[in-house]
């Protein structure tokens, strides 16, 4: 039993020793591949994903008509279209399962990420072009959609595509199952696979430091009274993730300035208000 309710109520520690509001270790790298326009690698606990962004570039011949197995923006008149491909490696989870390109769950993740990007990237600056996001899942241990969204954000920033703000995501769950009928169960942050299998959870993605929700996916049954608590904890987790990602981008930027690859700012942003 992953989250033995009796143990949890005693020590208030989860099976991996975390408290209810602890994130797992988040490690990320930006610009991991020289040949790509933008790339990133992200680990949230044992969930490991890789992202490559190509574009904005001329659409490939096959992409114009809408390829099978990938999410694509349609009905966007003047802006760049966004194509998201998620590939789940066969060795990524405990049971070696073959997932085809038409797997419904993967398709839904592709569409979720694509919609979130389409709303927040400034695609109108690149008419008649395509931005392709390729995501590879190397290892799965819960919060997969959240990890994919965070990796995509980093890779898009690396590609230098203008966007409104960071889109950061994390999961939030509840300490008892739906069947337990506990209306006052405590919320949990950043679930791993074992917890996801047992407990109701949702994935929430927010825009920058604001409370604007860009992504919200809940696939499990949960009492409506618990939802608010889960959402609050999830949004708070997203802000923590944003701080971590922002630190990674800034660290990379400082390194590039030090190497002389990028010129320094002409002036400080603070002095402009005077």
């Amino acid at each position, binding site marked *: 039993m992953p989250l033995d309710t009796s143990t949890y109520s005693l020590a208030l520690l989860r099976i991996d020793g975390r408290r209810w509001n602890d994130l797992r270790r988040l490690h990320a790298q930006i610009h991991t591949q020289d040949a790509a*326009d933008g790339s990133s690698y992200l680990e949230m606990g044992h969930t490991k994903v890789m992202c490559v962004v190509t574009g904005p570039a001329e659409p490939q011949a096959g992409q114009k008509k809408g390829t099978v197995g990938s999410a694509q923006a349609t009905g966007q008149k003047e802006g760049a279209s966004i194509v998201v491909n998620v590939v789940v490696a066969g060795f990524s989870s405990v049971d070696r399962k073959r997932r085809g390109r038409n797997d419904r769950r993967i398709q839904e993740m592709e569409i979720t990420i694509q919609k979130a990007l389409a709303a927040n990237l400034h695609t109108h600056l690149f008419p008649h072009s395509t931005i392709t996001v390729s995501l590879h899942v190397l290892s799965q241990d819960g919060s997969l959609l959240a990890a994919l969204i965070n990796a995509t954000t980093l890779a898009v920033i690396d590609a230098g595509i203008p966007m409104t703000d960071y889109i950061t995501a994390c999961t939030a769950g509840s300490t008892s199952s739906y069947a337990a009928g506990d209306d006052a169960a405590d919320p949990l942050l950043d679930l791993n696979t074992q917890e996801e299998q047992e407990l109701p959870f949702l994935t929430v993605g927010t825009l*920058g430091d604001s409370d604007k929700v860009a992504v919200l996916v809940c696939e499990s049954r949960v009492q409506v009274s618990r939802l608010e608590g889960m959402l609050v904890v999830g949004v708070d987790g997203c802000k923590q993730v944003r701080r*971590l990602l922002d630190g990674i981008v800034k660290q990379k930027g400082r390194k*590039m300035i030090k190497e002389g690859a*990028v010129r320094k700012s002409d002036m*400080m942003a603070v002095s402009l208000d005077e």
Partner: protein
Amino acid sequence: MPITIHNPQPAGPAPRRPRAVDIDMDVASDSDSDSGTGGAAIQGDIPMHDDDDESIAQDEDDEFEEQGDARDEILTPGTVITSNSQWMRGHGTYVPLNTSSITSSLAGTLTRTNKLLSVRPLRARYNPEIGDLVVGRIVEVQAKRWRVDVAAAQLAILQISAINLPGGILRKRTETDELQIRSFFAEGDLLVAEVQQLHQDGAASLHTRSLKYGKLRNGVFVAVAGTGGGAGVVRSKRQLWTMEAANGGGKIDVLLGVNGYIWISKHIESDAAAEAAGINRMEESVSSQIYSSQNNHMDVTTMREIARCRSVILALVENGVKVDEDTVTRGYNEAVEFGRESMEDDIYLGGERGQRLAAALAGR
């Protein structure tokens, strides 16, 4: 052992890590303190914490930094630059709905042109500008024009009227030319051209109406990141120059396209007799072979030097050094010295050798 059970508490602010300065003062005031615990932190201004905590503590640290260091700071998407209405917003910024504050939409550094604020991205794809010298590859042949890959968001367009037709620069284009459009440029051909105009949607039109431009032969193609920040080709006075190759390799031409596409080739002397005959005659004699896809004869030594030059450029990019005439020439000379160290004259410059090259360039 008794276990104390606390109820869940809302997440508070991250605990403030002791800064190096604090520890410094503690040690100074308390001479009895164990140097083993604080000793490592006294070395400098660097806060001692591991990777994961760094970003959380970062926001605090920045406030304490001096003005000079703050210019190292980079803007990230969503950072408010200013809410003062006297500034105008440029590239890489936007104004969110229902506000008047200029906000960054990229990760990069701030540039100011009078009252215009823009953000220079750390890395971005090539963005064409009129007058840019670019190297491109033909992707598509259409009835009266070619579509050329120049590493931009869209393919560039090269009209048949924008090239030098064989048999004189001033000849009118005819239907025959349109029918044999593939005899000038076919799919996969490389060419050097200039950006003539930009369309409404950002696509570029090219032209090759100069003897400097046209089809590329006798060399090797290298693609690196283009302008817009990061290591790569920078816009400079000279994008094309000829240099003397070492080891009797003759002369080689290096052509740095602003879009990050590079062409390194053997230098071909233009025919002296034709040059003497006057400008119009020269056009005629040159243009008979201008669209040839046949390479000239090339010595193995020349090929080696071209390959060495290519390794230099790739090593520069790998180590974050910008690519321009100065760095390439100096890097090439260093590479020749490196080659002399070993018996077999190694031209490979990856990994450690590349780092050594970059270090030699930085140290002058």
